[in-house]
């Protein structure tokens, strides 16, 4: 068998091992100069430049320490004066049973230990079968391995070539010349992903906020990447979808962005993507979560606001808390001055003793520089709204008059403004009467800015003429 001859390079063969006093140790990682480009959507491009000694003519090269989730169809190999004949990705992992099954028809050494005096007896045996139990031929005897329950060591001369400790890419190449040269291996792999995490420390009295942005990358690809030059790409990469998720609905637009910005962030870009290169080379271990800082802005203006949205014909038995909204901008002046990759913003405030306490979080989508953001951090304990349908009269076949009363209460010692939105005003709805002038945001929504006095109440009434 030709393949047995090729064994020597990676797993040292038995005869060599027997003759040497020490066992040669494989190097810790077979990776060379690694670059990893990680996209948001659980996808990474790995480029690995290894120095390999390749003989002239046809030879077999092994690439250990590639991603365990490598997409073999995306592998490309480039080196001077080299062509690829074929490539295989071996998943068959080395284990005792796999080793025994592959040893059928081969000869192994058995070492029997005498249970009374510990004396060892060595014999050569031919493995006949490894089905349920192991049947061997020793000389002219046929035996079942360890049938008598006594200790028997089985020593294999070699490990079959395509059994690996870890998934390995093996490539047959044709080289025009012999010699060591850089071989560039590139492939796509899932299992590597990144997102942004933001820490915002909000100072309500000063109306300012300190923001730190962290890039969080996670490696579940089954392989560590040693001293990798790492580049993160923000933006969605169009991936060919498999048939079953083609009909998945598009994700809803991220609600926190109130106004999309039109400024260009001072970051390296490629096509429509922003690029975030890590300053230093880093080792990305398997099952590791790694965070690197990319944004640190202090004293950016930020303000707190209250919002409450009423659905059509909603009556609440109990007053409902208004949403607490943190408003800020990503613009160059009066803002964070950067584009924000998608992630979670965690908001903190200082308590009476000056310790930062968590007050809520909200996720954001990819946000261009110059955008206005309004993040819902939570619901206000002390600011509440109670919508009530006070009266509903049928005016005609498809015409209704509905009178709404919104009672707003404020238990804080400061006066607050609540942005009260009535939604669900479909079609040709009109507001015929209202206690305070509203702003029609769209055909569907009307907005009142309601001032609620400190430790007090305010009320808005409105009468709607609607089709439903």
């Amino acid at each position, binding site marked *: 068998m030709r393949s047995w001859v090729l064994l020597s390079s990676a797993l040292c063969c*038995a005869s060599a091992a*027997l003759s040497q*006093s020490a*066992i040669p*140790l494989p190097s810790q990682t077979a990776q060379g100069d690694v670059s990893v480009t990680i996209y948001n959507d659980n996808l990474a491009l790995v480029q690995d430049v290894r120095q390999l000694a390749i003989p002239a003519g046809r030879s077999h090269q092994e690439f250990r320490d590639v991603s365990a989730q490598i997409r073999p169809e995306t592998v490309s190999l480039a080196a001077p004066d080299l062509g690829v004949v074929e490539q295989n990705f071996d998943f068959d*992992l*080395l*284990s*005792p*049973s796999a080793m025994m099954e592959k040893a059928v028809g081969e000869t192994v050494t058995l070492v029997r*230990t005498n249970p009374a*005096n*510990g004396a060892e007896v060595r014999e050569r045996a031919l493995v006949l079968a490894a089905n349920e*139990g192991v049947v061997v031929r020793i000389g002219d005897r046929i035996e*079942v391995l*360890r*049938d008598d*329950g006594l*200790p*028997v060591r*089985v*020593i*294999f001369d070699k*490990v079959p070539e395509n059994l690996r400790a*870890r998934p390995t890419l093996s490539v047959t190449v044709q080289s025009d010349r012999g010699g060591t040269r850089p071989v560039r291996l590139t492939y796509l792999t899932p299992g590597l992903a990144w*997102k942004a995490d933001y820490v915002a420390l*909000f100072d*309500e009295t000063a109306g300012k906020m300190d923001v730190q942005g962290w890039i969080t990358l*996670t490696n*579940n690809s089954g392989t560590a990447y040693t001293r990798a030059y790492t580049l993160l790409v923000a933006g969605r990469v169009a991936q060919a979808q498999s048939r079953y998720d083609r009909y998945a609905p598009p994700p809803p637009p991220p609600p926190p962005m109130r106004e999309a910005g039109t400024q260009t962030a001072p970051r390296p870009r490629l096509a429509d993507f922003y690029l975030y290169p890590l300053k230093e080379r880093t080792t990305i271990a*398997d*099952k*590791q*979560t*790694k*965070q*690197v800082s990319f944004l640190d802005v202090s004293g950016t203006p930020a303000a707190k606001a209250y919002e409450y949205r009423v659905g059509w014909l909603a*009556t609440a038995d*109990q*007053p409902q808390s208004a949403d*607490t909204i943190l408003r800020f901008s990503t613009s160059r002046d009066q803002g964070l001055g950067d584009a924000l990759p998608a992630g979670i913003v*965690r908001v903190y405030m200082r308590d*009476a003793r000056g*310790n930062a*306490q*968590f*007050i*809520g*979080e909200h996720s954001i989508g990819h946000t261009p520089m110059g955008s206005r953001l309004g993040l819902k951090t*939570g*619901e*206000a304990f*002390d*600011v*509440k709204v109670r919508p*009530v*349908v006070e*009266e509903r009269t049928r005016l005609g076949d498809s015409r209704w008059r509905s009178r709404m009363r919104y009672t707003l*209460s404020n*238990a804080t010692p400061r006066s607050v403004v609540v942005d009260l939105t009535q939604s669900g005003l479909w079609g040709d709805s009109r507001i015929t009467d209202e206690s305070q002038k509203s702003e029609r945001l769209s055909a569907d929504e009307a907005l009142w800015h309601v001032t609620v006095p400190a430790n007090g109440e305010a009320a808005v009434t409105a009468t709607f003429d609607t089709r439903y």
Partner: protein
Amino acid sequence: MRPIASLLLLMAASQAAGQTSITSPRPDSVGVTVYRSPGSSDANEWNLDWLEGFALISERRTVAIPEGDSEIRFEGVAGGIIPESAIVSGLPDGVVEKNQDADLLSPGSLLGRYLGRRVQLQRTSKATGKVTQQEAIIRSGPDGAVVLQTKEGFEALRCTGINETLIYPEVPASLSDKPTLSVRTHSDRPASAVVTLSYLATGFDWRANYVATLRPDGRHVDLFAWVTLANGDPTSFRNASTNAVAGRLNTEDMRRRNPARATPLRLRCWPQSTTTSGLHTRNIGGFPDQSIAESLNRVAAPPPPMPERGGDDIVVTGVRMKAEQEELGDLKLYRIPEPVTVAARSQKQVAMIEQANVPVDLLYRSKMSGGDLYSTVLVVKAVNRRDLGLGLPLPAGGFALYEEWRGRALLVGEGSTGDKAVGEKVEVELSAPTNVNVELKTLERRKEIARLALTVANALPRPVVYEAELGSTEQRLSGFTGGKVVREDGKWIWRVSVPANSTRELRYETRQD
């Protein structure tokens, strides 16, 4: 200084690739702020393995930072840590990167890290007790048992019937027994720094529980509230300054995403059936086989003690200490005034509110819609104002009403309340059996109009207030006789005082459109 001394003793520094690794084994001081789960229902018993709230842990640690590049490993962080939420401050030159390795030290991970490395294979002879060691290289990972390469060739660990084991020279630096967060930093000179490490962790929760005892006059209660904290994490926090936050926070996915795990070691061998595999033999003199050992266990083990409320796992700290309330943005923070120990997998209760002689109104209420009647409940009403005996934020929680009877407290009913701000009306509906019976009868039906009779019968020896919610004002009701019906908050309400041992009746018409 004890912290410094323990620091010098415990901080094992090891050189690896030009980078010093320092381990900070535990915090000097810690703060725990517990946030409740957004959607928890107070009716359910807590499951310490499945707490849906979370906590903000803030730790202060003293770290000796060497010159140059170093890695600082923070051991003893909560098992439910959300690593991307970690904030590290106080390092002289900031953080180069933060890492969390989800791999814990276990037989499997130890073997995995030694793949391709040299270990000692030790064998002990059963006959002579002689111990031999030889060098071996691990050739396969923990997923499919162990293949070893020795000078003689390739062998499988423990497929032989020989007593053999692997001896590793040391624990790899990146494996810890506990979940560990690490940061890489750089310093121009050696320095001692006080580092603050804050992070969110899942597996915590808290609850408010109100206990109201009705005074003999039937118009006042003594109100008492507990805050009950639960820590389902395997980590204990000693002498922690402890807070609970009330109010509703917006949270994204607060589930554990990359929990620390111990890689199991699976030792599988080649097929090992023999010519006698089908026979059941009893081992004599050796270990009894698994199933026998298990059945022995089952017989011998005493039954587990009955879980008891107020037992060892619930620590009642006593009324001498009361949580102090302060404002935190639009949330309410309850601070336990002294440091307490939040032990692993336990509950702790501290008094939160103690208000004597709060005026309340008790009334009976039933709701109906069209001709359907829903069950009658007892309602405790109060107004959360200082001049009316309250006037303090009331976080959402369970509510139990007790009444004294000959010196004993009897439970009248249980219910729950939402977050109530100062100035708000408070209403708790108690699911309690009542002696006030309500009946709704359809007397007559003509086309779309139904004529109904609502009867309320009071079997108690005292007068009661009864309130019926006849429906929303969108429903067209008319022809009321026997009582006065008002429109309130978009509902038709009939409110009546029913004298002791008597009945009242309301008749009205509804129109179905």
